[in-house]
Every structure is written in structure tokens, then in C-alpha cells.
């Protein structure tokens, strides 16, 4: 008895020692916590939902394949409601209470800019934006914890303008854009570029409806009274749906050419969208014919029963960018991952891109084409697509420096 008692004591001591040795290893096995803060309700609700859905899909894939550095990924998803104050509150809560290691977001430029400057910067947490794209977050209000893997507002406006400027008969432009960060900045970039490329172009008027506008009739009639050749718009979702519906009875699309944001998310909401509109988007599933895109599209469609819109494509990419960054750094320590992300070249669903070190902007493309109905889909898609590479539409390093210096003076 005594003998066996000693034996068991020895055994349990050995077990205890082993267990205590295993403890740090188990702590290492805790999941990598990623805060997901985006507008899941409000004016951009379906955009935010698609983005969050893709992140969940990506996280499950990564976990099924063994995680990142052997650790699982855990997402904490928060709705920022298209409101700046809610965005700051939720992002702060993710950092302080949930103790997330990284932040992904946001959706609206206004909210994203706010979380970048008052949460990501304050608490030194890396934030990667896959949807919100005001260029101010990489230029004037740049802070080193912020990364952007979506073409910025300026790149979008510039890409659309480059194709529009090639249409010889388009001389008189009217612009209509949402009265907030994104709308103003993108319309500004469009006008600046089109005027530079075509000195004969005239802007006959500009409208800035509020995001929640539901009745575009007075805008439509006043634009038509000015008889422009072409109307540039950056309306999307509910606003675009209302605009197109209300413009149709006026024969608007027969009388003027239309340049429009043409993301699938908005096109699903606008079944009436006519053909022959010059549309631009950040990268839809039908824009790329690669096996990776096909695989992603099928997986997404099967799981969520709707097509992965560009926001899903970009969200998915952003999670893999973070994964590559962590793997390159070999740790989740912020400073090391930050260094790894600067200059990182990654293969995403839209191609192979590099994140520039001086502004943390990835050289992602913008896709510009003409709307056409396709019996395969319940929404219009783009054809004759021009994939404008990021390198052609990004600010140069000098431009960024000048703009930062000018902003610093102010």
C-alpha cells in the first residue's frame, strides 16, 4: 500500500509539473481577437452586413485550416449604426473591454475616420479599412496604425473621370453627390480629373442632397432644366434606388448620359437601373475570372444565399491581409505587425497588391464599365470593364507630402 501510495504521489507531482509547464503554451493558444466595427444598420446597412458576413466566412476558413500562427481567430462584431458617436463608443469598447488585438472597419467614411483618429491612434491598435475610403484617413489625417485596402475616394473619382473624359461628346457635366465626407471628396476628385484631362469640359451645376434624402424629384427637374450632356453621381443604395425610380418617368436616361456608382449592392436595390450607364465599382465577383474569386463566390453564395458584393470581396481580402501581416511578423505584437504590413505584397481576390509604407494605401484597382442586363443575375452588371490599376490613380508620394504639409499649415 505504502509503495503504491508513494508511486501515486510521485505520479501526481509529475503531472502537476507537466501541467504547469503546459500553462504558458495553453495561454498562447488563446484566440487572436479581432474587433469588427461597421455600420450594420442605417443608410449603408446592407453594405456593412455583406462585409461582416465575408469576415465570418474568412475567419471560419482560417480556423478550419489551423488558424494564424496556430491560434484561432475570434471575431467580435459591433454595429456602429452609421453614427460617429456610436462608432467611437463601440470601437473603444472593443479595445478596452473586449481587449481585441486588431480592428477591422469601418463602413461609412465619417465613422471610420473617427475611429481611426480617436480609437486606433489613441490606443495604438491596428485598424484596417476595407470599405470606408475617404483619402483623408491616409493623407491629411493619416496615423500610423491605420491601413486601407480599398481604392480611396480620390482613386474612385479619378478612375471614373479617366473613362468619362474619353467620351468626346460629354462636355457639360452636372454632378450630384451625397453631402458628407465620401460624396464631397469623390465628386471633387472626379471634377478635378475630368477638367484636367478635358479643358473643354464645363460643370453646369452641382447638387449635394443629404444621405437620407428620399425625394429626388426637385433635383432631377432642376438638373434637366440645365440641359447637361452627362450627370455624374455617387449616390448609392437607397438614394440611388429612389433617384433612378424617380428619374425614369422623366425620360432622364434618354436625355442625359449617366455616370454612377454601380456596386452590386446598390444594383440589387435598383432593379430598374437602365443599360448603357457608365458605372464604377471597387471590385465585384464578376470583375475577376480567377479560381480564387470563383471559389470565394461559391462559398459565400452557398452560405448566405446572396451574391458577395464588392464589400464582401474587400472585407475578405482585409482579413487575409491581416493574416499575412501577422505571419510575416511571427507575432501579434502591434509594432511588429505594423512593420510587417508596411510594404507587404499580398495576393487577394482582385490580384496582387502592395501596401505603401508612407500612407498605408494598397494599390488596389477601380473597375469602370457600362451597365448591361444579364439573364444570369437579378441585377445589372458591368461589361467592357476597364480595370484601372491603383498605380495610375493613386496620389504620388510627392502629392501626399504636399497635401499633408498644406493641411499642417492650416
Amino acid at each position, binding site marked *: 500500500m505504502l509503495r503504491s501510495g508513494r508511486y501515486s504521489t510521485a505520479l501526481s507531482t509529475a503531472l502537476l509539473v507537466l501541467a504547469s509547464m503546459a500553462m504558458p503554451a495553453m495561454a498562447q493558444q488563446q484566440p487572436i481577437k479581432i474587433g469588427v466595427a461597421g455600420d450594420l*444598420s*442605417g443608410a449603408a*446597412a446592407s453594405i456593412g452586413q455583406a462585409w461582416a458576413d465575408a469576415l465570418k466566412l474568412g475567419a471560419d476558413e482560417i480556423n478550419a485550416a489551423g488558424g494564424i500562427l496556430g491560434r484561432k481567430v475570434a471575431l467580435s462584431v459591433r454595429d456602429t449604426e452609421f453614427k460617429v458617436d456610436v462608432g467611437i463608443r463601440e470601437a473603444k469598447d472593443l479595445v478596452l473591454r473586449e481587449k481585441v488585438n486588431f480592428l477591422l472597419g469601418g463602413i461609412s467614411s465619417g465613422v471610420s475616420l473617427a475611429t481611426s483618429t480617436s480609437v486606433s491612434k489613441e490606443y495604438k491598435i491596428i485598424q484596417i479599412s476595407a470599405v470606408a475610403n475617404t483619402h483623408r484617413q491616409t493623407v491629411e489625417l493619416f496615423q500610423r496604425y491605420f491601413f486601407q485596402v480599398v481604392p480611396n475616394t480620390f482613386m474612385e473619382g479619378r478612375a471614373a473621370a479617366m473613362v468619362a473624359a474619353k467620351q468626346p461628346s460629354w462636355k457639360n457635366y452636372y454632378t450630384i453627390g451625397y453631402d458628407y465626407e465620401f460624396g464631397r471628396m469623390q465628386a471633387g476628385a472626379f471634377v478635378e480629373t475630368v477638367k484636367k484631362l478635358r479643358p473643354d469640359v464645363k460643370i453646369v451645376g452641382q447638387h449635394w442632397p443629404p444621405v437620407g434624402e*428620399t425625394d429626388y424629384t426637385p433635383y*432631377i427637374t*432642376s438638373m434637366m*432644366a440645365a440641359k447637361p450632356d452627362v450627370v455624374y453621381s455617387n449616390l448609392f443604395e*437607397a438614394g440611388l434606388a429612389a433617384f433612378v*425610380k424617380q428619374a425614369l*418617368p422623366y425620360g432622364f436616361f434618354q436625355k442625359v448620359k449617366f455616370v454612377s456608382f454601380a456596386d452590386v449592392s446598390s444594383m440589387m436595390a435598383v432593379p430598374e437601373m437602365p443599360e448603357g450607364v457608365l458605372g464604377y465599382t471597387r471590385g465585384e465577383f464578376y470583375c475577376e475570372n480567377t479560381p480564387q474569386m470563383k471559389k470565394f463566390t461559391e462559398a459565400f453564395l452557398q452560405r448566405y444565399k446572396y451574391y458577395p458584393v464588392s464589400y464582401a470581396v474587400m472585407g475578405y481580402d482585409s482579413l487575409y491581409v491581416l493574416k499575412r501581416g501577422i505571419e510575416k511578423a511571427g507575432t501579434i505584437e502591434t509594432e511588429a505587425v505594423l512593420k510587417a504590413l508596411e510594404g507587404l505584397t499580398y495576393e487577394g481576390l482582385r490580384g496582387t497588391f502592395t501596401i505603401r509604407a508612407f500612407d498605408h494605401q494598397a494599390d488596389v484597382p477601380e473597375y469602370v464599365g457600362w451597365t448591361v442586363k444579364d439573364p444570369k443575375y437579378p441585377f445589372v452588371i458591368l461589361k467592357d470593364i476597364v480595370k484601372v490599376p491603383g498605380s495610375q490613380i493613386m496620389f504620388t508620394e510627392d502629392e501626399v507630402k504636399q497635401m499633408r504639409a498644406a493641411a499642417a499649415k492650416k
Partner: protein
Amino acid sequence: MTAADVLGQFLSGLARAGVLFLIAAGLSFIFGVVKIVNFAHGALYMVGAFLTYSFRVTLGVPFWASIVLAAVCVAVIGIGMEVFLFRRVYGRPVADQLLLTFAMVLIIHDVVRLAYGSNLRSVPRPPLLAGAVFLGDVIFPSYYIFIVLTGTAVLLGFWAFLHKTRLGKTIRAAVGNREMVACLGKPLPWLFTAAFAAGVFVDGLAGAIGAPLGGIRLGMDFDIIILAFATVIVGGFGSLPGTALAAFIIGEAYAFGIWLMPAIALSLPFIIMAAVLIVRPWGLLGRSGGGEL
């Protein structure tokens, strides 16, 4: 700027006025009779739009039947709210009424979110009203003619109801002197329920008719309800002709504002409201002290 442009813009304003009036009419009427400021009015308008989507798109009910069914359903929801909740706060401080009706806004929003999610929905216009009427160079979408006619019908309908029917006359009497009407053996609470139902029915109708105008989505009520309140205040709380006049003024001010001075167009309705509040705090056609429909 030609005469046709001016007329085109005027008609845009008229369409906007029609929508505003339909939403504001119920709000104003309910306040006129039961003296409650119903913050949930906008939320019920949204419910009307979503129900129209369900009837028309999901169930395939014909358009005209869909809008009537949606309005009736909203009226039934309204009656439930009045009987079980609002009745308890009549005569209580305004703050209590605001708290209760605002709570209803939050509850209705979450119910709609559960039932429909937060994606955008769309109801097509009926083929009969999908086109436009051409007056020379001026184009006026047929659907707007329908809206303006419905608005006019609602205004006349309320007038006829209040002045030509026994129930309407009793309601007017109750507004003037509740005690006397109660003494005559009239069931006062049910008179108020009837009035509330009528106001909410028109509200649901506004949502139903508004559904094919643009997109239907969660939160669509917030965008319009503030303007609806401004309309009611400008016209005079409780005065339906006042509400109609205010909707016309605000709609036209907005339409011409967007055309001629876009920088201040958005604030024009509120500038008008401020001006009216300074000169006639009881509204254009309201009476100081209220009490008249």
C-alpha cells in the same frame, strides 16, 4: 430658365407637398382630437410601407388592394396602441406622452428589423402610373398626379367626415367640450379611438403610397418625420387646411430652393417654421389656444 422649367419645378414641389401632407395630416388630426403628440407616427408610416412590400411583392396581391390592406393593418395596430397604451397617458404631462410614444418608435423599429432585416426593399409602381404626362415641354410623372389627388381626397374626406357625419360632428363637439359630450352619454374614449384610428389609417396609407416612390428601409421614417412635424407646426397643430397649406409652402420652397439656392434649400423648411413661430406661434391657420379642427 424658361416657363416650362419653372412649371416643371413647381410640379416637383407639388409632388413633395402631396407626400408631406399625407404624412402630416394624420399627425395633425390626432393631435387636434386626442391632444397627443405621437412620435410613433413616423414609425407607423414605415410599417405601412413595409406591409405594402409584403402584400405586393411577397404575396403578389394587386397594387391597389395592397395599399388599402396595408393602411387597414396599420390602423388596426394603431387601435391596439391607443386602447392599451396611449389611453393611459391622456391628461398626463407631455413628457410622459413623449416617453411612451418614443418607446413605441424603438419597439416598432426592432420589430421591423426582426421581420425584414435591414436590407433595402423596393415596390414597383403599377403599370398604369409608371409613366408620365406630357404638357408640352413639361413632364409630370403619373404617380405624382395620383399622390396629389389622394392628398386632396384625404383633405376633403376629413372635412366631410367632420362636418357631414354624425360621428364626425360628435368628435368636433368632444374637442370643444369633453364634459358636455360625456354628459350626453357619448362614449368619449371610443370617440377618441375612432379619431386615432382615422389618423393612423391615413398615416399607413401615406406609407403605402410612398412605398413605390423610392426605396423602403429601416429608418426611412426618421428622414421624413421631422419635416412632417415642421409642416404641422407651420400649418397649426390640429388644423387640416393649415397642414395642407403648410405642406404646399414647404414643398414648393424646397423645390425652388434646390433649384435656385441649393446651399440653403435643406434649411428652408425650418427657416419658414421659425418665421411662423415668431409671427404666429399657433401656426398659419391654427387658433391661439387651439380647440378647432
